[in-house]
């Protein structure tokens, strides 16, 4: 072993250690920010390690430097700009987009190696070795392509650029996807048999498979898909590691792949969905329209902002249930104003966060943190559920399915079994909502019919602004 090899070995080892510590630290609130920086540092370290290795051995041509710099500057610049500009509400789409690009990168590496085999130093042809090479190239292309197209479709659906086409809800889609899968398998074997041109077939059909698998998946299940695709991008990176013979890539890719799978599992549990039903069950709304979509509301009580303010003034304990609608209305800051007033007059306020509030688990926490809501006021579902009977007022803002008592009471409901917040146990529930439209699942919400529920119709931000005015008139929050 010569010096550059040893240096690279040490740096790689250090990078792996730091990346592992980074992932570990990211799962604790206190250490998360430092852990993220640590992981970023480990990544830059690994680049330095690789470049210094090549400088010390084969050298790096000027031409190569130019292309390295062009690629780096363009990629980093766009990444940094997007990361700075994107609003917090669009976080799931952003993660999907970044993820897709990671997959694309692995795909391109494998494609490049496949079309122009790089000299690996030792020229002795070995059947076993070339077989492994072809397999890892195929896996890298297959997973990379699925990650890319799947993520782009996920992003487009979350952005509302794409809706779920009707045919994807029928059984036809299984047939179509099986055709794509079989075609990729054929391309794969053809490739191993030495037919290099079938690599293009593999690229095309695995891209189509990524689209075909993601397109039928409905809104609420999207976060699970993004998490799964995140795991895939790790697998794609590990496969690329086999292509270029890099242990660091394999370790890091495998870590991300495995961690992504665990996270996916956690999310599925939060929604009471199995991974299989998310991937193959189609969207929830399509199944439910037939069964319980016909329910009519019979006992809606609507009330004014003024009444709502009066009830709030008299309360001792208030629980806020925020949903994605709140974030869309950009009302989290206004909400914070309201709760500040309540707190100032001695009313206890907590926020009940359902595991899938927002568009992604943990998304709502980020949005509320953006509005300066103290972290301790955010209560997880299991912690807050026993508190509802002792609560005077619950404010439901832009949340719907997560407060539907059907999930507990009605075994015929598609929501049945999903963990929900037991808001109906509280003395009074105010639901602030634009109209009577159904939630993500498209299912009627029995909560709205209950006698202790009052609807306050209007845009969340406007209602909250009015509420601030009313509370001011009542002298709430004046010290």
């Amino acid at each position, binding site marked *: 072993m010569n010096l550059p090899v040893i240096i690279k070995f040490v740096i790689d080892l250090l990078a792996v250690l730091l990346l*592992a510590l*980074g*992932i570990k630290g990211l*799962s*604790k*609130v206190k250490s998360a920010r430092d852990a*993220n920086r640590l*992981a970023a540092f480990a*990544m830059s370290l*690994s*680049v330095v390690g*690789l470049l210094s290795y090549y400088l010390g051995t*084969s050298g790096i041509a000027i*031409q*190569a430097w130019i*292309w390295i710099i*062009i*690629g780096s500057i363009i*990629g*980093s610049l766009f990444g*940094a700009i997007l*990361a700075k500009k*994107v609003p917090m509400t669009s*976080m*799931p789409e952003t*993660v999907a987009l*970044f993820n897709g*690009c*990671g997959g*694309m*990168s692995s795909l*391109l*590496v494998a494609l*490049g190696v496949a079309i*122009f085999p*790089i000299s690996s130093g030792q020229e002795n042809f070995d059947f*076993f070795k070339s077989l492994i090479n072809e397999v890892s190239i195929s896996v890298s292309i297959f997973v990379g392509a699925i990650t890319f197209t799947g993520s782009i479709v996920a992003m487009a659906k979350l952005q509302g650029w794409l809706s779920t086409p009707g045919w994807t809800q029928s059984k036809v889609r299984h047939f179509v996807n099986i055709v794509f899968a079989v075609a990729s398998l054929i391309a794969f074997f053809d490739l191993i048999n030495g037919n290099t041109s079938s690599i293009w077939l593999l690229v095309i059909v695995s891209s189509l498979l990524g689209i075909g698998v993601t397109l039928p998946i409905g809104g609420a299940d999207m976060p699970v898909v993004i998490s799964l695709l*995140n795991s895939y991008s*790790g697998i794609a*990176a590990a496969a*690329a590691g086999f292509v270029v*013979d890099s242990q660091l*890539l394999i370790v890091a*890719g*495998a*870590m*991300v792949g*495995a*961690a*992504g799978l*665990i*996270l996916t599992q956690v*999310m599925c549990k*939060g929604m009471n969905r199995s991974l299989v039903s998310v991937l193959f069950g189609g969207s929830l709304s399509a199944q439910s329209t037939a069964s319980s979509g016909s329910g009519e509301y019979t006992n809606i009580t609507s009330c004014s902002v003024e009444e709502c303010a009066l009830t709030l003034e008299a309360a001792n304990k208030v629980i806020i249930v925020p949903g994605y609608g709140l974030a869309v209305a950009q009302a989290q800051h206004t909400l914070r104003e309201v709760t500040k007033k309540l707190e100032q007059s001695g009313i206890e306020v907590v926020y009940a966060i359902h595991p899938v509030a927002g568009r992604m*688990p*943990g998304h709502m*926490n*980020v949005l509320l*943190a953006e509005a300066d809501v103290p972290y*301790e006021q955010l209560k997880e579902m299991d912690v807050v559920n026993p508190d509802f009977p002792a609560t005077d007022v619950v404010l439901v803002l832009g949340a719907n399915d997560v407060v539907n008592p059907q999930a507990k009471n009605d075994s015929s409901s598609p929501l049945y079994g999903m963990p929900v917040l037991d808001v109906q146990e509280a003395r009074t529930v105010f639901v602030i909502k634009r109209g009577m439209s159904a939630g993500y699942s498209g299912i009627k919400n029995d909560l709205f019919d209950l006698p202790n529920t009052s609807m306050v119709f209007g845009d969340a931000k406007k209602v909250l602004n009015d509420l601030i005015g009313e509370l001011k008139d009542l002298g709430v929050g004046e010290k």
Partner: protein
Amino acid sequence: MSFISLLWVLLLGSLLGLELIGKVPPTLHTPLMSGANAISGITMLAALTLIVKAEGNVPLLIIGSVSLGFALFNVVGGFFVTDRMLAMFSRKPSNKK
């Protein structure tokens, strides 16, 4: 590096990943996903290798460079956006228990 030892690396790396994410508070699901996502951009090393070993083959240089761009878009964007999210959690003094 022999194929078998690379497989060992794959296996141990996967086990490590499974072990690292034990109990994650829901608050951190989004940042964790986006942080892990940034790490998957490690494939930038493969893109670098491709460029260095291209030996003047221009199409390969271009593929490598585009691949590097995509990977760095993933890495830089991912880490920045994760930092932005986490900054919101740690901003308040009341957060320190």
